């Protein structure tokens, strides 16, 4: 990252990493610009019928603000359904369930997040999203390089090993998948519960050495 006083980038120049198999594109803003004080990313739904914000609640204490930068979306916020044309802000506290589906082509939502009361820490999932983005874009080599580098730098974080296990399972590498999943479970037994319901491992589930 350069240490210029400022950086400029247009939405069209940001990377486009698929997040799911239905067309949701993750457009990393924080990572591209080197922002460190808060998290921010854009999500684009090109067809206009697909999900533009995954349905989730924030488990790590982040509050999030969404801004519909272009197009039109329907948000779910808690139990409410919200019609959100361009120009709408949606604020979600950490435990509140939220998600959005685009209702117009080329809908882009900007998401901004951070945890109150503490200095911002860059979320580990960003690098994992990059790796799986490369995989979904058909570049298995880049995906593997990215994930193994992340795991090497974060050997004590179960999330890295778990996601590498998923990647090995998706690319039909039995031994690698089992080894990485074992390591993830050693670091946090919660990984076993996630693996029990994760379809990435379906073809391995009957293997006598499968650890979940």
């Amino acid at each position, binding site marked *: 990252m350069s240490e210029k*006083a400022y950086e400029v980038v247009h939405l069209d120049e940001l990377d486009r990493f698929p997040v799911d198999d239905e067309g949701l594109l993750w457009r990393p803003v924080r990572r591209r610009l080197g922002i460190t004080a808060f998290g921010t990313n854009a999500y684009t739904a090109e067809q206009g019928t697909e999900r533009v914000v995954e349905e989730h609640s924030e488990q790590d204490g982040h*509050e999030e603000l969404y801004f519909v930068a272009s197009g039109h979306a329907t*948000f779910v*916020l808690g139990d409410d359904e919200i019609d959100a044309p361009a120009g*709408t*802000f949606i604020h979600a506290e950490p435990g509140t369930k939220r998600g959005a589906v685009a209702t117009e082509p080329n809908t882009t939502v900007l998401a901004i997040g*951070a945890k109150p009361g503490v200095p911002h820490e860059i979320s580990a999932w960003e690098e994992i999203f990059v790796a799986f983005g490369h995989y979904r874009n058909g570049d298995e080599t880049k995906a593997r390089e990215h994930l193994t580098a992340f795991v090497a730098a974060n050997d004590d974080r179960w999330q890295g090993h778990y996601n590498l296990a998923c990647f090995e399972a998706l690319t039909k590498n039995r031994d690698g998948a089992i080894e990485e999943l074992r390591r993830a479970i050693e670091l946090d037994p919660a990984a076993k519960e996630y693996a029990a319901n994760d379809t990435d491992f379906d073809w391995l589930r009957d293997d006598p050495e499968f650890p979940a």
Partner: protein
Amino acid sequence: MSGTANVNELALRLGGGPSWAMVRTHFDIQSFGVNAYIAEEPGIRIVEDHDELGERAGRHEELYFVSSGRATFTVNGDEIDAPAGTFVFVRDPAAKRTALAEEAGTTIVIVGGKPGEAFSPSPWERNAEGLVHFANEDYDKAAETYEQFLDERPGDGGFLYNLACAESRLGRKDSALKHIRQSVEAEERFKQDAVTDPDFDAIRDDPEFSAITGQADSAPAGS
């Protein structure tokens, strides 16, 4: 609180400048600063000329996102054409930055925070509480609010300036002149702001106001 709002519904029209949507205070966001500005016409200075080092600034890194229209940014003397969809990220709090709207309806969302520190609101944001009363044309309440703020931060140039604005609107000429003088003494830049601020229309022709704002010195020399 979780909630939703449209940027145009939040925007407060304040004199001749851009409308200001106080997003952070509306949602009571505690982990980053966020506001939006809307220029109704081209030629409006949509981001004031500033750095993040001033007494009331937060030393934040700032992200500007042009969500509609078009603006010309100037950062450290570099001119940047910024159509809708442009992100301008100013990392260095010492960098001078400003932007001029090029189209009617230009909207810029600004997000800020200080790297390595938990977020706390910039002191200038206290102004927001009083500016709501200007938008509602409740100048008594605005004056009362800035008097309270001045009890907390005596001599604050911004609070003095806005108190003078409210007093001018209320026809309290002597108080308005006293407080605009004190604000200019605290921060020279308010001299220039006062010259074009419609809040001072009621006292603009007063020779004391001209003296305070330097207009008396700028009359062309005659022979």
